[in-house]
């Protein structure tokens, strides 16, 4: 068992860390995918050139096990066999020693297709031209939640607001592109890779190979953000087939353009709101319908859909709600996991809708939101009571005070509409459910951790959760060291290797600290009680669901998540009214993540999450062209913020310890991406005096909105008279 270098991030910082692309192996072969050039169709023939000695081709025919990757449901083939569903789908893996020869051979492969009319958008998916891509109706998944009585709610309404709010694709743009290397050691097929979830890769390999003489090791990983949850399977499946057959080391590393074009993206979403407000200005009913574009294969869309549905009303207590969410199959790159997993979409859309209703009612957005906040007495959207103390009002108070939100909001409202530069300030309130949806931690994941203490009193942590740059290895060591009252140097953590670590679940869903960290704390407590000086000891600990946590996965009733974290963001902008460029002058982030264990590490999450969310709201435009591929192909086209595009972020926390988290901690990694896009757009809206109902709000979008005739995106229906007649 190898342990991670105890000098935290020392190797990465010095350039000594051996990422997949840096590795050298004797006899290493390179692998390249031949990908579909057709969006939708049947494969009629595959024409391959004669291969030079030492070059090999692998296809669906070579799969010894099952040619389907079990991500959630086994629908995504390792190699396309009879049909292709998107441009970029893997058809062949070409392997050989010289990358240049591989490059030339790839140009000599051709595939004949019988094309069908592709569907790229949800509307096209629903139209079912040339029949369904998936099942009979292209619908991957659909769920509905009803709370209260929606009809009775609308009966009390004097005004109804209808609005559509949409979000676009988002690319992870992790520093290190996707890559894996495979080889045989001790008669096992070993895959090492840049990945979040080695046990997922293990299960995919065992399905594809049909045996379990396999092993998966996480390599140093240069960022993931969810992008390395499902996609490493897509590389490892075909790669394992080749390594299994050739018994030689083979590496597949995607280059940046390939990575941008063909790896999973954040789901675009279209929310349709119908919201009833009574004569006191209170929301009495919300009817929400939304569609997710899931791309060609189901992958993680079901869980993204569940999160988007169960958090659709964000931090608000609305008495009567109906939510219908649907995930659609299209002929585009499958959309998958991305930090927030449906929540950044939900939070942007509902926060914008709330702002726009407030504006229509002549109310201040913050006051309007405050009048609808969840309280300790509230029943959640999914019918549960609130567990623990809500501190949303403290978060708001702290944010408003630090940013001087109210004074600035008033001052900017009074600024000249003719100014060359105009300022605005916006606020967003948001939440994030920590851990797997519902009680899937208990029914599906069943995480297990192990601690080993050797004869020299050195303790080693064995978990499958990966450090992908977020700093997990340090926080885990800190949890165990603090519990055992040992110096940090006396606690190591194992490299994530399926030969030595138990399955403590994937590194996703803001679960690593609150779920796995807590099990580690329990394990450390047990070890402390049984500690025998000079003895080798092993402690295993399983996840145990807290007694309050009840969940009905069929009807989506109960505690939608084991715990929920909260946050407030304030963003201040200045818009150049000649170029429509937006300068972000200031940004504040205030969070309730229970009790923070390592503030410096969490500050990294705040900075990174907020910058990524500001990019999502302001500039990260990723659009499909007419061929169903992204128009933005490189880092010169797909814009993420640089350090000059964002201000120094002002961070703060409200301490609110959670009894079932390590040292009182909840999750926080995704939370930090949920709010900044909405606060940014609200600030731009104040500055330019127009509403926006989609992100990203680029300078082009602002220009278009300001130079066209102003149009209200939100439809207002006055039903007061009708109600009176009744």
């Amino acid at each position: 068992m190898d342990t991670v270098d105890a000098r935290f991030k020392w190797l990465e910082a010095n350039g000594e860390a051996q990422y997949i692309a840096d590795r050298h192996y004797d006899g290493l072969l390179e692998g390249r995918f031949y990908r579909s050039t057709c969006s939708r169709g049947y494969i009629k023939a595959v024409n391959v050139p004669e291969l030079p000695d030492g070059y090999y081709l692998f296809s669906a025919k070579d799969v010894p096990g099952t040619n389907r990757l079990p991500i959630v449901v086994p629908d995504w083939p390792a190699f396309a066999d009879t049909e292709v569903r998107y441009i970029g789908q893997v058809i062949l893996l070409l392997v050989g020693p010289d990358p240049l020869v591989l490059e030339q051979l790839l140009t000599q492969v051709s595939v004949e297709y019988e094309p069908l009319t592709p569907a790229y958008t949800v509307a096209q998916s629903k139209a079912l031209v040339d029949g369904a891509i998936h099942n009979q109706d292209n619908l991957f998944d659909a769920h509905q939640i009803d709370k209260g009585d929606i009809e009775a709610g609308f009966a009390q309404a004097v005004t109804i607001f209808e609005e559509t709010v949409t979000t676009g694709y988002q690319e992870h743009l992790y520093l290190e592109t996707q890559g894996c290397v495979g080889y045989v050691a001790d008669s096992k097929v070993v895959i090492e890779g840049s990945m979040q979830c080695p046990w997922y890769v293990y299960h995919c390999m065992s399905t594809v190979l049909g045996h379990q003489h396999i092993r998966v090791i996480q390599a140093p990983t240069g960022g993931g953000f969810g992008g390395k949850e499902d996609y490493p399977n897509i590389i490892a499946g075909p790669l394992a087939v080749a390594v299994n057959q050739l018994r030689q080391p083979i590496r597949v590393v995607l280059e940046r353009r390939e990575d941008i074009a063909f790896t999973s993206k954040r789901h675009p979403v279209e929310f349709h709101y119908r919201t009833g407000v009574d004569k006191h200005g209170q929301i009495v009913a919300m009817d929400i319908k939304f569609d997710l574009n899931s791309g060609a294969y189901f992958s993680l869309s079901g869980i993204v859909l569940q999160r988007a549905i169960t958090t659709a009303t964000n931090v608000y207590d609305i008495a009567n709600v109906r939510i219908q969410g649907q995930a659609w199959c299209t002929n585009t790159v499958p959309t998958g996991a991305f930090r927030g997993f449906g929540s950044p979409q939900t939070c942007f859309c509902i926060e914008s809708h709330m702002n726009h209703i407030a504006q229509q009612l002549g109310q201040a957005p913050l006051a309007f939101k405050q009048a609808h906040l969840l309280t300790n007495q509230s029943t959640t959207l999914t019918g549960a009571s609130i567990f623990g103390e809500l501190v949303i009002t403290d978060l708001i108070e702290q944010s408003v005070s630090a940013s001087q939100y109210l004074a600035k909001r008033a001052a900017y409202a009074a600024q000249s509409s003719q100014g060359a530069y105009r300022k605005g300030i916006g606020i967003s309130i948001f939440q994030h459910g920590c851990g797997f949806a519902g009680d899937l931690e208990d029914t599906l994941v069943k995480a297990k951790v192990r601690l080993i203490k050797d004869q020299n009193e050195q303790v080693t942590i064995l978990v499958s959760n990966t450090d992908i740059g977020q700093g997990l290895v340090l926080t885990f060591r800190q949890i165990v060291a603090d519990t055992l009252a040992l110096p940090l140097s006396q606690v190591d953590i194992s490299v994530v290797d399926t030969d030595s670590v138990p399955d403590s679940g994937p590194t996703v869903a803001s679960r690593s600290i609150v779920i796995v960290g807590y099990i580690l704390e329990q394990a450390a407590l047990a070890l402390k009680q049984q500690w025998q000086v000079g003895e080798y000891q092993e402690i295993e600990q399983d996840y145990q669901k807290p007694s309050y946590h009840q969940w009905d996965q069929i009807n989506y009733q109960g505690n939608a998540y084991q715990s929920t974290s909260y946050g407030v963001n304030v963003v201040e902008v200045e818009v150049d009214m000649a170029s429509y460029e937006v300068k972000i002058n200031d940004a504040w982030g205030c969070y309730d993540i229970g009790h923070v264990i390592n503030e410096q590490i969490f500050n990294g999450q705040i900075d990174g999450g907020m910058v990524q969310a500001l990019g999502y709201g302001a500039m990260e435009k990723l659009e499909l062209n007419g061929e169903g591929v992204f128009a933005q192909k490189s880092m010169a086209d797909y814009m993420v913020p640089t350090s000059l595009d964002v201000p120094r972020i002002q961070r703060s926390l409200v301490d609110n310890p959670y009894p079932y988290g390590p040292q009182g901690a909840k999750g926080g990694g995704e939370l930090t991406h949920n709010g900044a896009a909405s606060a940014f757009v609200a600030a731009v809206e104040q500055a330019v005096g127009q509403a926006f109902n989609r992100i990203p709000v680029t300078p082009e979008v602002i220009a278009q909105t300001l130079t066209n005739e102003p149009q209200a995106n939100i439809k207002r229906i006055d039903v007061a008279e009708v109600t009176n007649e009744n």
Partner: protein
Amino acid sequence: MVAIYRPTQLADALAVLTNETCTVFAGGTDLMVRHRVRPNIVADFSQPVMFIDAITELGQIQTLADGTLRIGAAVTLAQLIAHPLIPDLLKQSAAKIAAPALRNRATLVGNVCNASPAADTLPILYLLDAKVQLQSCQGERTMALTQFILGPGQTPIDGCELLTWLEIPPQQFTQTFYHKVGTRAANALTKVSVVAAAQVVDEHVLDWRIAFGAVAPTVVRSPSLEQLVVGLNVSQLQQTHFITQLQQQYAELIVPIDDQRSTAKYRKQVALNLLKRWLLMIN
């Protein structure tokens, strides 16, 4: 594999070019992107490559007796930014190109020879009436930059010629204006850029110029429209009627495109807005 030359003397470089057609490589920051294959695979150059970075003479910035600046073909953007005699407008545009690492290699003359419609330094060089000097074993010729840039990526340079020097005549401006609208604040390609300069004495406009980048196949600068402004009183420039009229006249020359980074409509609107901003700034 292709032949590689790295002469240290200009005469040697010209001799190589007389014998064979080479890709001339100064900083290489555009060439390495254009000829890239994949990471860890050597760039794919189809013809011999001649590096000119070792020619000391061409790494110089000189001032002639009449005040003309001469910038050698191997002068990097970083050198330019640090040099006391380089006009501030040119420094501003160079400083907005990419990031420090790239500016340490990329050259001004490379930016010119690349002849991209979105080249950052070209609008400034147009505005400053820059000239280019082409040398070969047969001799040399000097031409206005406007004659040198024929279209996107197109120049009249002959295979045996090397663009050795770029010349900027002395200027007397009382006011300048530069606005690059990039895809973001740094490491950004240009969506539209506007550069302008004027010489105003006692409220009389003695010189007035404006150039637009990334809104047409080549930089837009119109001496005839500029002549409409020269000779006027500052107050006349700022009359709404005058501004609108000038915007309409420039609108005919501004013919941008839609691409993955921006839209034609946006580029045109912003170019005209910035023209107005510049007119209102003059005093």
